[in-house]
């Protein structure tokens, strides 16, 4: 340990379950238990998620009750404060490690009265529009459910009337990697978009894009497609247990507690921390007692959804028609809202993301969610510009003469 006989005690405030789990993993693995999560009143340092529900008020309360406790603020926006250490999301391991070191140095400094400079109005908190509908809409379950032992606190800020948004699970999933497993998945499927999205506004479009390259998703995609292309098994190593990709069966060999991998989806990893190794054919890839085998496609599908959080990969053109190359295996993976309709439309007539939402009269965020998941598996492609037909009708597909019957059948199938 770093000059301390005991681990430094950290409170994680206003944090959603996924981020909290990620911190636990980080402290346990990367930091070798030099830090430990505790409740606020016992903490040496607090980490506060400024993008959460009522974050500003939480920060003010914290400063009022624990004025000498160093705070690390994490946020998507660029707001910095004078007397707190700031880490911008998506959180990089080095940035967080550095922030913790600086906060520890403050601990060791003589106590100084911290003047209340943090009178931050809600409107200045800079909560990004991507999350706006979720965190400010009292009809939604806030993103701050704690899944922790009773003696550790993040604050549960579920609004008193907050009803968990429902999503009817369509299938029984045989492949556990593809199942809806927790509230975070439900949140994903109930993200509401902001209105008036302008695809020609570079600032706005940038907010709806993300970079998967240095996330677990990005590295996994690299390894997976390498395995398929080279027709060899591949192992992906990093700050997680090794993931072995079996190219023939398109399956993965992972530790039994594989679900924690999804908790890493929001983190960035340096290339130096990750290795992708092609295995010799003679290497035994049978799972050990502590491992299990999953199908790769539902795993990557869900991983991309968790990583993207309703955004699309950087460089996506919102106005270029998208063509479906391959239908997802919907019986064995998460069926996002309107996924079947979008797939059918893109198979029948390539349509841009913006036009898809318009033609089908569905929230743009669900188009983004479906696009990101399918794109991660190369199931879609942008239509080449020269093939675009400028004379295409405004409505790409006309109403089927039996639509009323189909609607009645859909209703029957839904009720089965």
């Amino acid at each position, binding site marked *: 340990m770093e000059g301390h006989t005991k681990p430094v005690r950290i409170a994680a405030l206003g944090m959603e379950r996924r981020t909290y789990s990620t911190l636990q993993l980080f402290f346990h693995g990367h930091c070798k238990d030099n830090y430990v999560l505790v409740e606020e009143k016992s903490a040496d340092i607090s980490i506060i998620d400024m993008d959460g529900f009522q974050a500003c008020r939480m920060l003010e309360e914290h400063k009022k009750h624990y004025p000498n406790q160093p705070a690390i603020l994490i946020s998507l926006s660029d707001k910095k404060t004078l007397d707190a250490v700031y880490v911008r999301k998506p959180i990089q391991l080095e940035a967080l490690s550095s922030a913790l070191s600086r906060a520890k140095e403050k601990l060791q400094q003589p106590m100084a009265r911290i003047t209340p400079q943090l009178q931050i109005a809600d409107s200045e908190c800079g909560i990004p529009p991507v999350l706006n509908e979720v965190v400010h809409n009292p009809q939604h379950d806030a993103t701050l459910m704690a899944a922790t032992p009773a003696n550790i606190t993040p604050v549960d800020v579920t609004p008193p009337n907050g009803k968990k948004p429902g999503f009817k699970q369509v299938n029984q999933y045989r492949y556990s990697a593809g199942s809806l497993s927790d509230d975070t998945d439900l949140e994903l499927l109930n993200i509401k978009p902001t209105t008036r999205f302008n695809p020609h506004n570079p600032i706005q479009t940038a907010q709806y894009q993300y970079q998967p390259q240095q996330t677990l998703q990005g590295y996994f995609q690299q390894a997976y497609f390498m395995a398929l292309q080279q027709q060899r098994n591949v192992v992906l190593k990093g700050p997680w247990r090794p993931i072995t990709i079996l190219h023939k069966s398109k399956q993965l060999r992972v530790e039994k507690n594989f679900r924690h991998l999804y908790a890493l989806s929001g983190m960035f990893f340096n290339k130096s921390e990750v290795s992708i190794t092609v295995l010799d054919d003679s290497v035994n890839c049978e799972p050990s007692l502590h491992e299990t085998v999953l199908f790769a496609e539902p795993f990557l599908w869900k991983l991309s959804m968790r990583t993207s959080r309703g955004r699309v990969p950087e460089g996506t053109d919102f106005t270029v028609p998208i063509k479906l190359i391959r239908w997802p*295996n*919907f019986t064995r993976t998460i069926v996002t809202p309107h996924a079947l309709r979008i797939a059918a439309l893109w198979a029948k007539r390539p349509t841009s993301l913006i036009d898809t939402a318009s033609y089908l009269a569905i929230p743009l965020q669900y188009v983004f969610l479906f696009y990101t998941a399918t794109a991660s598996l190369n199931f879609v492609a942008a239509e080449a510009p020269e093939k675009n037909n400028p004379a295409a009708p405004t409505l790409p*597909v006309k109403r089927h003469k039996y639509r009323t019957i189909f609607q009645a059948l859909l209703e029957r199938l839904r009720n089965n």
Partner: protein
Amino acid sequence: MTNYKIIFTGPVGAGKTTAISSISDRSPVSTDKLATDMTRNIKKTTTVACDYGTVRLNEKDRLHLYGTPGQQRFDFMWDILTTGGIGLILLLDNTRPDPFQDMEFFLEQFNDFINQTQIAIGVTQMDLNSTPCIDDYHKHLHSRGMTLPVFEVDARKQCDVSLLIKALLFSLDPGLVENHD
């Protein structure tokens, strides 16, 4: 009362009878007889005419589910059964020696009907034999210039068969609206 029909087809043992059973309103009429030919090595009974099930849609509309006999000697019935149909469900058995050959065969046989309507493909028995995988089926379809819904299906599971039918319906009309609770 107005009647509509969806046809289930595929080779022997693919699960057509079972799939119809899983979503019919009541036990479907089965025309199974004891198998006397090579089919008996696959299962004890075989459909000699067709399976039939119904789904009541509302007061006046009913959907009929017809399962074609899987054996080729009954192919004369296929044209009769598809007349007036709204779509085709093709079930393929992944444990058969050459499921791609099966797929090619049925796509050819029902080519005209598919061009007029739509088709969705369910691959059964993948729990017994996971290769070829779904991606392999897509590669074969891609070589024919086709992008079709192909799902792994357990014919006994209503949810799997329902999803396959939904894919067929949305392929026919992407403008359909599905309510989410």
